């Protein structure tokens, strides 16, 4: 709390936030009788709004149920680190591009910013983004490892033309400068398609948690491949078979086999209102949620308010962007009887979001952690309380 804020006549008090927590903030009096604080050098959230990530040892999850529109505020973007968050001096930052190229080159941050820049809005989702098991789980806990930003940077294709890629090159290695020196192998076609070296996020420099000063951004591809704090790209004629693409980020598909190099994030959606721990009243309820696909635009979202027996189209809120969180809504008149509500997304390729049992059936009975995008159902109880309804498939 700044001194001059206090001088402006306000006092500290305990208040209840919009989400229902009790926190200490400025006491609201009659705002028309006392001048408020003067203009400041940095804006802040209202004390009544205190959204938070849920952090574990390895990741922290976006409060999807608190978001409005389609942009995730930068400080609420999900995080997944493999060796913590490094501190990198932007004046000492270097990106080396070498390997099967004509002109191995070191780019400083200043160099990267001299190239033509692009901005695009797209989601970023960890491929391990699914939790289930008990009714008292929030959307944040179930699938909070997805977020969306407007990213600014230079297309990787611009840099690849600059260094001159050997015609027989097919992959590249991306390496971060965190304490894990994390590496992933990426098919070169993604580099020519829409990959970016991003240095901007939502109108300012990247956050350290998102790779400051520069990261690889692969729109629509599993989060882990979007290597943060990127320091090196080695163009090659095959994958390097790093730990993250062999021992991790692979999953059982039955018959003793495991799937590797699943890059695209499949279409998914979730209702964020109403969701646990909210409570609704009888009458009109505007069901809202987010839908997205790593393969392109969302084609349609359908909502069921009778536990999946009947489905009706939801309204998509523009802009409906490729590889982007898209907000949808569905106006529903709740009659006060217990039911289940759920949604399912279909993307422009025609792929439709499956059930957990559908995923398990397609993978020989396995659902072991990666690339799970099942339909999420919420149970509405008689008193209007909303609970997660974990799908039992075994």
């Amino acid at each position, binding site marked *: 709390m700044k001194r001059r804020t206090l001088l402006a006549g306000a006092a500290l008090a305990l208040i209840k936030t919009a989400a229902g927590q009790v926190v200490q903030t400025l006491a609201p009096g009659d705002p028309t009788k006392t001048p408020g604080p003067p203009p400041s050098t940095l804006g802040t959230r209202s004390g009544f709004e205190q959204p938070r990530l849920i952090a574990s040892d390895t990741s922290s999850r976006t409060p999807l149920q608190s978001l409005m529109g389609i942009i995730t505020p930068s400080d609420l973007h999900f995080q997944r680190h*493999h060796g913590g968050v490094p501190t990198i001096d932007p004046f000492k930052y270097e990106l080396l591009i070498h390997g099967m190229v004509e002109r191995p080159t070191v780019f400083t941050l200043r160099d990267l910013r001299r190239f033509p820049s692009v901005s695009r809005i797209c989601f970023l989702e960890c491929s391990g983004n699914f939790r289930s098991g008990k009714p008292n789980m929030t959307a944040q806990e179930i699938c909070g490892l997805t977020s969306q930003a407007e990213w600014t940077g230079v297309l990787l294709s611009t840099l690849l033309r600059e260094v001159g890629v050997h015609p027989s090159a097919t992959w590249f290695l991306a390496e971060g400068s965190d304490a894990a020196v994390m590496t992933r192998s990426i098919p070169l076609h993604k580099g020519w398609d829409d990959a970016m070296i991003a240095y901007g996020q939502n109108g300012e420099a990247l956050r350290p948690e998102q790779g400051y000063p520069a990261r690889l951004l692969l729109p629509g591809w599993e989060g882990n491949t979007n290597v943060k704090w990127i320091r*090196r790209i080695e163009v*090659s004629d095959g*994958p390097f*078979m*790093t*730990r993250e693409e062999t021992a991790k980020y692979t999953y059982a598909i039955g018959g003793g086999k*495991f799937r*590797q190099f*699943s890059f695209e994030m499949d279409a998914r959606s979730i209702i964020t209102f109403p969701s646990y721990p909210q409570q609704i009243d009888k009458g009109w309820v505007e069901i809202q949620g987010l839908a997205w696909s790593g393969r392109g635009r969302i084609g349609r979202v359908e909502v069921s308010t009778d536990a999946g027996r009947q489905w009706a189209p939801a309204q998509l809120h523009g802009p409906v962007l490729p590889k982007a969180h898209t907000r949808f809504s569905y106006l529903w008149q709740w009659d006060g009887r217990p039911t289940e509500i759920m949604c399912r997304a279909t993307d422009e390729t025609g792929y439709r979001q499956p059930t957990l049992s559908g995923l398990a059936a397609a993978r020989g009975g396995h659902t072991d952690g990666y690339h799970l995008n099942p339909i999420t159902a919420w149970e509405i109880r008689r008193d209007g309380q909303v609970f997660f309804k974990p799908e039992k498939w075994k």
Partner: protein
Amino acid sequence: MAIAIRPDGRGLPRGSGDAVTGQVIYAAKCAACHGVTGREGSSPRLVGDTGKTIGNYWPYATTVFDYIRRAMPLNAPGSLSNDEVYSLTAYLLSANRVITEKTMLDSARLAAVRMPARNLFVNDRGR
């Protein structure tokens, strides 16, 4: 700076090590997190047939060397010498019965190791 190793062994540095030497380093620098035999502890299981281990799930031996060298130990990544990394790799492969305890690993021998999990994986690229 280019420390990545290919599955065919390209990029492996000079140096060598064996399982007996590796076991001593493992006890000092790895066992606290991965357990005395690589089966216990809070960090990923490394040895044996239970769960996903190096012995039953890692398709390339080169990945073991590459990952230890770049990221381990967790509290001092990048601190091990190449000989130490060869020794630790030899110990973990030996504990998983992929190589014998007496094998002296160097770049050529490590590149020649064929892992039990070599054919477990199906490439999803282009699906």
